């Protein structure tokens, strides 16, 4: 622990949770003020994995900077890349081939599935059940294998480039994805049996960490966190990019705003992602996987903002160009950063156990917050 803060004047206990703590999933440092077991205040201290990606990007070309963004939200690296590619394409005025669009969306949804599977296991572990973690990883491994075949990487993909995708799909891709869909469908009920319908789990989740719809908007939350509070904000629905316009899926919405609602939203999203992949996997058209682009990309003077829906919420990529080969300033609006700001509000008045459950359902990825 970095600092010895002791107790406050009122005799409250101040505890450092993190940066090395089993439930913070990375180097998040929370300073919590406790009255007995009840939380009075949660104060996040960030920056333990701050690499200043925004500053780095200022000296990287438009082709290079995408690779850095895989390291932001490493669980949805495809989607980060996708957002950056979209922003650059906006500036280049380039039309992405249909095949590339299909591939991108399929990859996005597979990433979302993998990310939610990891979240599911990790969240169950936060509330004390260790076994689900292994069950979640069993299926996640299949997605990783599929990714590895096509992209050559399992975590930081660097697959999407301005104008399309870096390389064509592996011949086994379609079969692998179909096998995965078949297996995952049969295992999904197991997830529900093991965790969703568990009485203890329900007790830990229901009416815990309630975030009202109004607060969800005011705190700028997005993704499953906002949707669990009844805020319809799915970028794929409201500002569809690539071929999301043609895909049929429902936006997962819950109104309770508690941990269980966030849980249900993500479970529902997994089903939706699966159905999106199912719709697209047989419809991938033949053709180019990449538009013809110049080797050195120069963007015109101006501003380009692209929005994508990552597994955690709305990722914004804001490029300010002065007409060169490198961005003048780049800003990543990361979903986890805004979602984290609501943590204090949600955790107040709860117990330590609630804090852990809330952090679990916020699905925080620290490199995404720190950047």
């Amino acid at each position, binding site marked *: 622990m970095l600092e010895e803060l002791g107790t406050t004047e009122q005799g409250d206990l101040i505890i450092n949770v993190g940066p090395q703590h089993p439930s913070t999933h990375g180097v998040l440092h929370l300073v919590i003020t406790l009255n007995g077991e009840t939380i009075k205040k949660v104060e996040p201290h960030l920056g333990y994995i701050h690499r200043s990606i925004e500053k780095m990007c200022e000296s990287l070309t438009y082709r290079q900077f995408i690779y850095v963004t895989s390291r932001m939200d490493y669980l949805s690296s495809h989607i980060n890349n996708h957002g950056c590619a979209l922003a650059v394409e906006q500036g280049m005025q380039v039309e992405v081939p249909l095949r590339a669009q299909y591939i991108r969306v399929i990859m996005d949804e597979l990433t979302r599935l993998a990310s939610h599977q990891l979240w599911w296991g990790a969240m169950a572990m936060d509330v004390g059940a260790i076994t689900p973690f292994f069950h979640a990883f069993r299926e996640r491994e299949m997605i990783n294998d599929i990714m590895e075949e096509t992209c050559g990487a399992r975590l930081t993909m660097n697959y999407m480039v301005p104008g399309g995708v870096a390389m064509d799909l592996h011949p086994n891709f379609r079969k692998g994805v179909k096998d995965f869909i078949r297996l995952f469908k049969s295992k999904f009920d197991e997830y529900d049996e093991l965790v969703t319908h568990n009485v203890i789990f329900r007790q830990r989740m229901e009416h815990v960490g309630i975030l009202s719809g109004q607060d969800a908007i*005011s705190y700028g939350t997005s993704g499953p966190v906002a949707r669990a509070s009844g805020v319809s904000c799915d970028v794929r629905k409201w500002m569809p990019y690539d071929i999301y316009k043609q895909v049929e899926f429902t936006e997962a919405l819950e109104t309770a705003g508690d941990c269980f609602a966030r849980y249900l939203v993500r479970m529902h999203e997994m089903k939706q992602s699966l159905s999106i992949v199912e719709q697209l996997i047989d419809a991938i058209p033949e053709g180019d996987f990449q538009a013809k682009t110049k080797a050195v990309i120069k963007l015109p003077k101006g501003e380009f903002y692209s929005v994508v829906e990552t597994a955690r919420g709305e990722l914004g990529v804001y490029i300010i160009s002065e007409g060169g080969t490198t961005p003048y*300033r780049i800003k990543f609006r990361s979903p986890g950063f805004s979602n984290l*700001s609501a943590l204090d509000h949600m955790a107040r008045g709860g117990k330590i156990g609630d804090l852990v459950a809330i952090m679990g359902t916020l699905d925080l990825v620290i490199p995404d917050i*720190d950047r």
Partner: protein
Amino acid sequence: MNAEEIKSSITAVFAGSSADEAGEWPVVAMDAEDWLNRALLLRDTREWLFDYLFCVTGIDWKTHFTVVFHLRSLKHRHSVVIKIQVDRDKPQLDSVSSVWRTAEFHEREVYDLFGIRFSHHPDLRRLFLTEDWNGWPLRKDYEDPVNMIKL
């Protein structure tokens, strides 16, 4: 409201603001004057209802700073980009964390990396960097021979 209507209605209400040509969303530029009240108006006026602040960006233009607020109305489903020019020698701007709660973190980030002071901010401290850090890393004239890689 479509983009043109938003631009014209905002520039009509706020003196000294001007519509800017830019990407997919309407852009309105204004100066730092009276920003807190304007923010309240942006959030509460019935035709605008910009209740969702999703991005706060600082930009160093070497002569001045610009703080960019990306706002969206979840009711009307329209967006607007507000650009506020801030003096570089004495960077100061009203905090809007009482209007949009999320601004508290975003403004701390901008303060941390650009050194723009947000007045009436409840807790304006460094967010990512340590308290004893010297300088404001995202400013263009920032030099750090140890940590920065020159390409």
